């Protein structure tokens, strides 16, 4: 029984569709792994939004292979395969004779902007957020083409889009000269951030939110921020904002999460909307 693949991408034109052999069904099911429909891109983003695979046995009423309940507050159920880049890339490959090159590039770019929400984990076992100004986790704001590559971890931690790949100390004419904790922290302090020993003290509205500085000795620095749910998130340079660490886990404390080569934890700091970065 052939399967029908529909790519959800257009708004005005009919979405591209093509037929694939049913012997791919086991691989599709394996890669799907019960994770269908939890990705925010399935909820109404313009441009690429995912795939649906239909069983064509019932000619007049093709049935989606998968359905899933969407997160709270969304209309459901969903039949979108989204948030599973391995499966989406495979489905894109099956449509290589039906999808124009420029459209395929658009989809590939979206797939490379993977954001794993792990909505099932967040809100559970996160530490308390005591900063009333803590921003919500909103990766869509940062992962848009044209914005993603021009804003880094410092932009993200301070929740300020400058499109300048902001550097600590640049706005206050105190750039760091070497990559170590003291130098980068001093530059950030001159921008208006303040160092603090923990992230447990109450911060009233207007007082800002917590961020954390870590260093890859002699090479680079990196920042995390605490979101309003209590867990932490970060943006990897010109790459995506996300709320998981290098091991794929929710970040409950940047001191102990998997940070790759950024081996030195420097300090927690407080930033606010009054801080100016460049």
């Amino acid at each position, binding site marked *: 029984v052939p399967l029908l693949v529909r790519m959800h991408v257009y708004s005005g034109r009919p979405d591209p569709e093509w037929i694939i052999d049913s012997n791919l069904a086991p691989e599709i099911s394996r890669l799907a792994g019960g994770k269908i429909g939890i990705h925010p891109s399935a909820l109404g983003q313009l441009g690429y939004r995912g795939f649906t695979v239909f069983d064509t046995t019932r000619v007049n009423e093709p049935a989606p292979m998968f359905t899933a309940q969407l997160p709270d507050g969304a209309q459901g159920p969903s039949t979108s395969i989204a948030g599973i880049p*391995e499966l989406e890339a495979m489905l894109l490959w099956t449509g290589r004779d039906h999808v124009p*090159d420029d459209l395929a*590039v658009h989809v590939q770019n979206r*797939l*490379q902007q*993977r954001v794993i929400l792990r909505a099932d984990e967040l809100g559970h076992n996160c530490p308390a957020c005591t900063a009333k100004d803590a921003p919500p986790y909103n990766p869509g704001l940062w992962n848009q083409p044209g914005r993603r590559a021009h804003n880094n971890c410092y932009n993200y931690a301070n929740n300020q889009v400058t499109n300048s790949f902001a550097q600590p100390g640049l706005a206050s004419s105190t750039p760091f000269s070497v990559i170590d904790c003291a130098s980068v922290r001093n530059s950030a302090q001159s921008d208006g951030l303040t160092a603090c020993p923990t992230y447990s003290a109450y911060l009233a509205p207007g007082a800002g939110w917590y961020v954390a500085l870590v260093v*890859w000795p002699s090479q680079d620095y990196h*920042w995390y921020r605490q979101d309003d749910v209590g867990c932490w998130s970060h*943006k990897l340079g010109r*790459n995506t904002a996300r709320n998981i660490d290098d091991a794929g886990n929710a970040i409950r404390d940047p001191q102990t999460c998997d940070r790759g080569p950024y081996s030195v934890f420097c300090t927690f700091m407080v930033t606010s909307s009054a801080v100016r970065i460049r």
Partner: protein
Amino acid sequence: MMSAVVTLEVFSGRPDPHWSLTAREEVELDRRVSNASIIRAPARHDEPLGYRGFRIHINAARGRDTDIWIYNGCIVARGQTRKDRGRYIERWLLKTGKTELPSELAAYVDGEIAGKP
């Protein structure tokens, strides 16, 4: 004429290092990518802290600009995924930037490539 700029995706705070390929290197890149076999297996989309691959922006004098992304043994170009068998293209690209990269950083990337065959 084209120009190809290689960006080593590795940093989070500082701008990533980048350099231009010579005309001879551009031809060699095109040859290596064209000879790589197209695969059905999708590219991996790991984006860890630290080394995250090479992105090559090709500015075409005629036609559209193109981005090629090479990481972890996979090449993504023009909507197709190809296999960088043995990660030879990644290793070769690292060598094209040897005069631009601090030796310590180059050694780190070399180790990352070697560590994930």
